[in-house]
């Protein structure tokens, strides 16, 4: 086979259309399926050439050509579709009732509480979570014990090999699995779930819950750790956050104290592939969770999460959380949906521009179908000069 065959639906297709195009997100969907693709630090590596003209790496890759409209049809109720936000059954502001969870969590601890609940109720037997042993370079671990879930809390700014961990445990074990995923990871899981190749049918039935995380971008580990080394030296980093303010900074919490890193320096560390992302609110999940915005301001908001329910499974889980009292709710400000829609549309628009710029052709958006209804809608929107 021609080594430069763009039409390959195997590893060569991935190499030419995704890796060499700089689109790979490091979601790790192609890892732990075969020995030729591996994950190292925060990157997916093509370790050995494979000459198969069809492969699961290509089939499941969220940056290989993807029919998102088909995935939406398969996963969601068409009645729920909101063009900017995906399937939408409601927007909530929540936080964990348990104060211990909130203290250990990035914001409201909603994800931690929901995963603990799903484990306790037997909805899932184990959950794949990004580890926070090393905040600069998270790994991904399956957790079966509710108490351990809290240890995995807090936001990570570098991607974790979550889907590869799912691949590994879904092949080995028998249990029901839940995954906390970023948008690209959730897209990959959805592609696997909706259209598994024969040998993956059984294991994909084990995927019972996807809790999505809102995601603006992820950082490139090598650049970020270099920056952190400059800023924090060898001090252990306990946490990080980017509070909204006029003087945007990343706050890095170390035992030495808080270090403020100007956002421009952080922006320089953002993965290139994030500029081709079409999904801020993690649309291909049962429930998607992010930080909150409200009139009361950041000091209050940082203790809360915003949450979108997308599937009936997600709605049931949230209802259960309310019933069991593991989450507290507060009223969502009236204009929050509009703000969220605008932010999401802005990211989608930037993605399409970047893709079109890469190909020089608005009808060739590499992995996104230019005829997709959401694409057509976003293209028609006007954001002025960005």
């Amino acid at each position, binding site marked *: 086979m021609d080594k430069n065959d763009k039409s390959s639906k*195997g590893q060569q297709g991935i190499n030419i259309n995704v890796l060499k195009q700089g689109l790979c997100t490091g979601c790790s969907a192609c890892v732990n*399926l*075969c*020995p*030729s693709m*591996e994950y*190292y*630090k925060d*990157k997916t*590596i*093509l*370790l*050995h*050439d*494979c*000459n*198969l003209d*069809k*492969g*699961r790496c290509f089939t499941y890759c969220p940056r290989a050509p993807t029919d998102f409209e088909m995935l939406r049809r398969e996963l969601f109720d068409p009645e729920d579709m909101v063009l900017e936000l995906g399937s939408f059954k409601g927007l909530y502001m929540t936080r964990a009732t348990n104060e211990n969870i909130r203290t250990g969590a990035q914001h409201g601890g909603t994800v931690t509480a929901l995963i603990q609940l799903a484990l306790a109720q037997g909805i899932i037997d184990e959950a794949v979570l990004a580890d926070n042993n090393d905040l600069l370079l998270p790994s991904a671990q399956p957790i079966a014990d509710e108490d351990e879930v809290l240890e995995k809390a807090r936001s990570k700014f570098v991607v974790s090999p979550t889907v590869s961990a799912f691949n590994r445990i879904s092949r080995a074990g028998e249990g029901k699995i839940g995954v906390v995923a970023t948008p690209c990871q959730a897209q990959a899981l959805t592609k696997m779930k909706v259209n598994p*190749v024969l*040998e993956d049918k059984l294991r994909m039935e084990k995927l019972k819950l996807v809790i999505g995380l809102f995601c603006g971008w992820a950082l490139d580990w*090598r650049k970020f750790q270099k920056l952190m080394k400059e800023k924090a030296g060898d001090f252990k980093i306990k946490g990080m956050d980017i509070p909204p303010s006029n003087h945007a900074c990343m706050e890095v919490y170390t035992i030495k104290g808080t270090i403020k890193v100007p956002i421009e320096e952080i922006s320089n560390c953002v993965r290139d592939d994030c500029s081709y992302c079409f999904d801020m609110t993690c649309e291909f999940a049962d429930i998607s969770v992010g930080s909150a915005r409200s009139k009361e301001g950041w000091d209050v908001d940082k203790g809360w999460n915003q949450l979108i329910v997308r599937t009936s499974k997600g709605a049931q889980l949230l209802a259960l959380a309310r019933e069991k009292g593991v989450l507290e709710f507060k009223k969502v400000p009236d204009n929050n949906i509009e703000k969220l829609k605008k932010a999401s549309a802005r990211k989608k628009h930037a993605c399409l521009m970047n893709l079109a710029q890469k190909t020089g052709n608005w009808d060739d958006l590499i992995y996104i179908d230019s005829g997709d209804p959401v694409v057509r809608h976003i293209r028609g929107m006007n954001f002025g000069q960005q």
Partner: protein
Amino acid sequence: MLEAKKDFEALLMGNDAIARGALEAGVNVVTGYPGTPSSEIVEQLAKVAEESNLYVEWSVNEKVALEVAAAGSYARLKSMCVMKQVGVNVAADSLLHIAEYGTRGGLVLVSCEDPGALSSTNEGDSRPYAKMMEFPLLEPGDFQEAKDMAKWAFELSEDIRNIVMLRSVTRLSHASGNVIMGELPKDRPKAAFEFSSIPMDQMKGPILAFPTLVDPLRRRQLEKLSKAEKIFEGSPFNKYTGPAKPELLIITSSVCKLYVQEALDILGLWERVGLLKLGTTWPLPSKLLEQHLGICEKIFIVEEGTPFLEDNIKALAAEKAKQVGIKTFFGRKDGTLPPVNELNPDLLIKGINFILGESYQFVSDEYKAKALEIIAAGAPVRELTFCPGCPHRASFWLINSALKLDNRAGFLCGDIGCYSLGAGPCGFSTIKILQAMGSGMGMASGFGKLDKFGMTQPIMAVCGDSTFFHAVIPALVNAVHNRSDMILVVLDNSGTAMTGFQPHPGSPSGAIGTRLPVLDIEKLCNSLNVRVEMGDPFDLKGTRETMLDLLEDGGNPRVLILKQPCALSPIKKGQKMYEMAIDANLCLADLCGCNKLCTRVFKCPGLIWDTQKEKVRIDEVLCTGCGVCADICPAKAIKA
């Protein structure tokens, strides 16, 4: 080597013939560094070292080998130093000084060269050293001459009191022919170095290359060269065969003589063509040449390597133009012969036909085409590859994986050894620079300093254990001192494996088998105060972790020693660490999830792809039981 009495005729390999010639000359000290096609000479002499009272050593490198041999000569012993063509470059600095001063006991430098680079990375021709450094050069043209000229080289050296170079080539060193033996001497000389006289007293003074002595030393050296030329004029190793007035005169040396003879036999041209075969090619016997250049207008010079004879004879012909007249020269320079690569009778037939305007074709085009067709269809494809169970395959698997995972376009600088194959598919094309002994380390030392110009690629170098001692130590010291950011991986397979497992300073015994102190590579590196890690290339998981960690730990030179004896090593031979087995039910074959990783990428010759069952199987005969493939198989179908 010793049993054969005088006048006994035996079939000898060219290298054996050279060794026998040295014994007949009464050689005492033999040194060398292994290198194809030279290694057998030292090995043969090592075997008889005790009986013949020889000192034989495999030296750390060719420069030291020449110096050790020169010490023998300066102590009035007959000494011989053996190497392949590239070794002469390593020895060249000392060679210049030894040749300038001269010798006491006979000193012969044997250079076995490799036209066509059959087992080399170059087609180096050492003959120009003889001209450049002004000492005599001998080129035996057959197996008898290999023995006879080896013996004569010592006599000549003692006659003129300077070093003599004996040059062989692969087709002489490694082919065999009949040789009639000569007498073996019985005398046992006593060694002593005298320095009681003035420096210019060659036999009794101190040996000093002082600036003020260069003028007289060089004058003396040139006198030696003139003396050699006079001897060469009457040498039986220079021989003319053919008519008194030929249409074409062919001048040749070395085994090219055999090619010319065969070509003339086939063409039936002995009546028309004359052959002047030279055994002494520097200095040229000018009177002899003047005499023969005069008999013919067309001169065809046949030689392998650089146009050494051609240039020198042309210069001589210009000098003697009045006496010999204007000549037309044919050779490598005008395209009568190809400018590079080995010669053979076919090429000579073509050349002679071209000059004489004949059209005889020894092998018809039709036959050639048919032969090629049969070869293509009938011969199995045999890739250049590492042996089954070779630790290098595992090492390159690891280095290749580590550099790819690291993902910063890191690369590997290699050098000379079995592991040079790391540049090819069997080494996953990991080596990106491959030149001379130890040059990988030196270049890595250089690349590792280019960060100030924005170079961010991680740099790795590999060397073998023998090469480590031979040429890597100074380069490593350079990297340490200059704080170069690089990783040296020493592929320690416990011997000079490529050339036949000769010992080196890390080995417990020397050329003659006596026990010798072992130099520990790890301890040597530790003494440089850099990070040194040990690893087993067969421990894929653990060693990969070490390698990745070393890659992250940038800024200074780091050393990783991967220790695992060669699969052919005497320590290992015939023993299997594991009995390998296949669970065919688990083998994923060419399905997504594997795609024959074992036989498509890893490709140990001990693994066979069964085309009928479409599963992998073990070749019980070839498999050495190293167990590495069990860790390669993603489905755990290969079991150790």
